[in-house]
Every structure is written in structure tokens, then in C-alpha cells.
């Protein structure tokens, strides 16, 4: 009974944290565009939160730079369980054009486990929406 309630509330209102690990801002503005009236991800109960301690879902953009690696692990540890990670954009998946640069570790899955990958450079807001909805469907 309680489990069902928790599951219901988790699906109906996932709070997200936007984590930029060295992205070029393109995916970031598309994520914000997904939150604003044209696409409006809030109709699925998704709310952008500023701190990892309140978040259920981490939306990560960008390749992982060496300097921010420890911070990402810390932010991931601060997020309460159960937590999910959506990697948005080609950089978060593999490193995109930056792959092979001396300061880039590759995709975000080199550092933390990822649940959903959204491809695109940058991913369109519709694609991000689709990724979020697919994640909610899996819960």
C-alpha cells in the first residue's frame, strides 16, 4: 500500500536537477526551453530544483571535464535514493566533438550510472520531453 503510494507520487512529480558538467550551453538552453510555455514539461509534474538534495532525477549535459569529475560524484552522492540520471545530448553520451581532448573524460557514464540517453547535438526540447516521459514509464 505504502509502496504503491510512493511509486505513484514518484511518477506524478519527479523533481529534476540540471547538472552542467562542461557543456556548451546548447543542451542547457534546450532544457530550459523544455520547461517554458511552448513545451512545458511541468505538465508531467516535473519541477526544476536547484539543489541535489531535493532532486529525484539528474539531467546531465556535457562531457565530463577532469576538474568537475569529483564534484559530479559528490552531487550524485548527495541526491537521495532512488535516483535516476538522464544524459542529454551527444556530449553527455560520448563526448561528441570534444572526444579525445586532454581535459575530457568522455561521456557522463564514465563517472556515474546513466538510466536514459537522449541523443542530439543539441537534443531538441521534444526529445528531452520524450526522454523524461520514457523514464517515468519505466518506474
Amino acid at each position, binding site marked *: 500500500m505504502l509502496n504503491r503510494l510512493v511509486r505513484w507520487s514518484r511518477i506524478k512529480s519527479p523533481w529534476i536537477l540540471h547538472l552542467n558538467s562542461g*557543456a556548451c550551453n546548447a543542451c542547457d538552453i534546450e532544457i530550459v526551453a523544455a520547461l517554458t*510555455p511552448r513545451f512545458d514539461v511541468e505538465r508531467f509534474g516535473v519541477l526544476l530544483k536547484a539543489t541535489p538534495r531535493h532532486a529525484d532525477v539528474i539531467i546531465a549535459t556535457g562531457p565530463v571535464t577532469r*576538474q568537475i569529475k569529483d564534484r559530479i560524484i559528490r552531487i550524485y552522492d548527495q541526491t537521495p535514493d532512488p535516483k535516476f540520471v538522464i544524459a542529454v545530448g551527444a556530449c553527455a553520451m560520448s563526448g561528441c566533438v570534444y572526444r579525445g581532448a586532454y581535459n575530457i573524460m568522455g561521456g557522463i557514464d564514465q563517472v556515474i550510472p546513466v538510466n536514459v540517453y537522449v541523443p542530439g547535438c543539441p537534443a531538441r526540447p521534444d526529445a528531452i520531453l520524450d526522454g523524461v516521459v520514457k523514464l517515468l514509464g519505466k518506474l
Partner: protein
Amino acid sequence: MKFTIPIGPQHPALKEPISLRMTVEGEVIQDADIRLGYNHRGLEKLAEERTWIQNIYLTERICGICSHSHATCYVQGVEKLMELNPPKRGLYIRTLVAELERIHSHLLWLGVAGHEAGFDSFFMYTWRDREVVMDLLEMISGNRVHYAINAIGGVRRDIDEMQRKKILDGLEILKTRTEYYFKIGANEPTFVGRLAGVGYLSKEKAVDLCAVGPMARASDLPQDVRKDDPYAVYDEVPFDVCTADTCDVLGRTVVRIKELFESYKICEFLMKNLPPGDIAVKAPTRAKPNEVVSRYEAPRGENTHYIKSNGTNKPERLKVRAPTLANYPATVEMLKNGFIADIPLIFAAIDPCICCAERTVNIVNARTGEEKILRFDELRALAEERFKKMPPKRNAVWPF
């Protein structure tokens, strides 16, 4: 009693990873220290391993918001190296995309400023209207963010009659909406009161610290590469350089809204006077050994690319100086003697694009160099001067 407050790299007020260290006494910031490098990707080194054409797409990915600025700046430099003259129609389309990008960037900034000032409905309104210009850009180039319209020697896609009409219609909608924002700004005393007097940067300091773009223009410094050193077709297009003399965040908002109107004007002119002809010329794969500096007025200020070629099909060196980097010393200056609550607003007012700024290791030197310049007694004198000059906030008005 002094405290040091670390802010970032992941912080509610910041959208991108950057670390600020504030030394505060009570509520007042005494000193600010910017720590960079969280977004450093080593892009300039990557550019040396790629061909001239591949680098267009790499430079485009320096930044997502001003992607066209970096790509155009790079392409202009390469065209100079290869001694190419792009056809007029190509330049017109390139300029059109540049101005549409400026519109999208300024609308985005207006929204962020509203959000940081606690005016969230303003944020939602501007971002809804921003979708109009995003649709136009998508129609012209096929992409929403990384337009990839530039090619060495011109542009990749032409504009037909139907698209021309659609662009003019879209501009009409945007114009009425922007007039509405201008009115909101003028008639909303809480908004004006929140922005006025915050993040003061005097004209002298703006010159000393080499502020660029809307930051400099809001400090009454009419500085615009489009006018000072016209590139593409800006020498043919009539437009004015917008300035404000309030030297604060309010001034920066006014400058950006006025620039929106100028951009609409430029776009309309370009669309009505679009010359017929080719859009691109054929480019060679190699460039003769030479070096070139290319300047471009990005939405955030002056963008400079230095390119050196050595006769092969790859550049020997590509150096990028993005406007946000140029504005850091001025930001530290603005944060000093401000309140903790003003940090997000002041920081947002430079329209920071951290991904633009972080490619080289040299930037650290710029910061330490800046720290040496200012002494504490100078700061105190500046603070006294500021409070003497500052008008009482209750009478703050929207400077038309």
C-alpha cells in the same frame, strides 16, 4: 569579522559550473574571487588537429547560445587567410542569422534577468516569444541551436521568397511583444527598483577594466565592433549603437531591449534589400602561411579569433577571446561592496557564457593580474564616491 562564502560550481544561482569565493563582512561583499576551469575542454588544442572545414563545426560548439558568433568569427578569419570574397547574398544571409541570434540571445537574457529579479512570469513570457525567433532560425538553417549555416566562402543555404515573408511576419510579432516588455519595465516599480543601482560600474572603470558589449554600453561607452570596425555588410546597414548612462543592471537591461529594436530594424533592412546572386564561392582546402585576427560583435560583446596558418589544411594555432572572459575583471569590480542577495543579478547581468570563456589556461593570469590592480583604500574611496553619486532608489525611473 570576515567570512568567505564559496558559491558554486553547482549552485541554484548559477546555470553553469563556475566557482565564486566571496569575502563578506556582514551582508556586504568585500572581495570576490572567481575560480575557473570547470568547463575547460581544451578546444584550441583540438582545433589544431582538424581541417579548416571541420573546425567550423568545432568552433560552433564553443558555445551554444552564441554559436553563430564563433563560427562567423572563425570563418571570416579563414576567408581572409584564403583571400576569398564571399558573394553579397551570402553575407546578407550570414548577417541575418547573426542578428536573429542576437535577438534570441537578448530575449533569453531578459528572461534570466527577470528570473533572477524574482519576476518569473516575465521569464516565461520572454521565453515563449523566444520560440518565434527559434522557429525562424530553424526554418532558415534547419537547426534550433547550432545553425551550421556558415561555409568558408559564404553560407550553405539560400532563402526563398516564402521564407522571406515568414521572417518579416515573425519580426512584426516580436516587435509588438518587445514594445510590451519595454512598457512593463517602465511601469513596474518593483522591477525597476530591484535593478536600479545594483552592480555599479563607472565609465572610467569600464574603460580601465576593458569591459565589452552591453556592459560597456550601459556605462555610456559607445563601443560596438559593428560600427567601429564593420565586418560582413554592417557598413551598408543603417543602425544605431545603443547606450545607457545609469551604469547599473537597469542600464544593461535597457541597452539590451533597445538593441532588440535595432536588430529588428537590421533584419528588416536585410530582408527588403536582399541582393540576387550566388550564396557562396568555392574555397581551397589549404591556406598560405599567414596569420589573422578576426573581430565580431557577439551578443555579449567583442569576440576575437586569432588564426595562424602554415600552408597545410589545418590551422597551426587558433586562439579565441570570448566576451565573457573580458568582462570578468569588471564583474569582480561590480560585486565588491554589493550585497550577497545581488550576486545572482550582477552575475547574470554580464550574461555570462562560461563555456565560451573556458578554453585556455591563460585565463587564470588575467584574474590574478586583476587582483593586483585594486587596493583596499581605492575600493573604499570608490564606495564612498558611489554612494554620493547614487540617486535614491525610490525615485528610480526607467530611462527612456
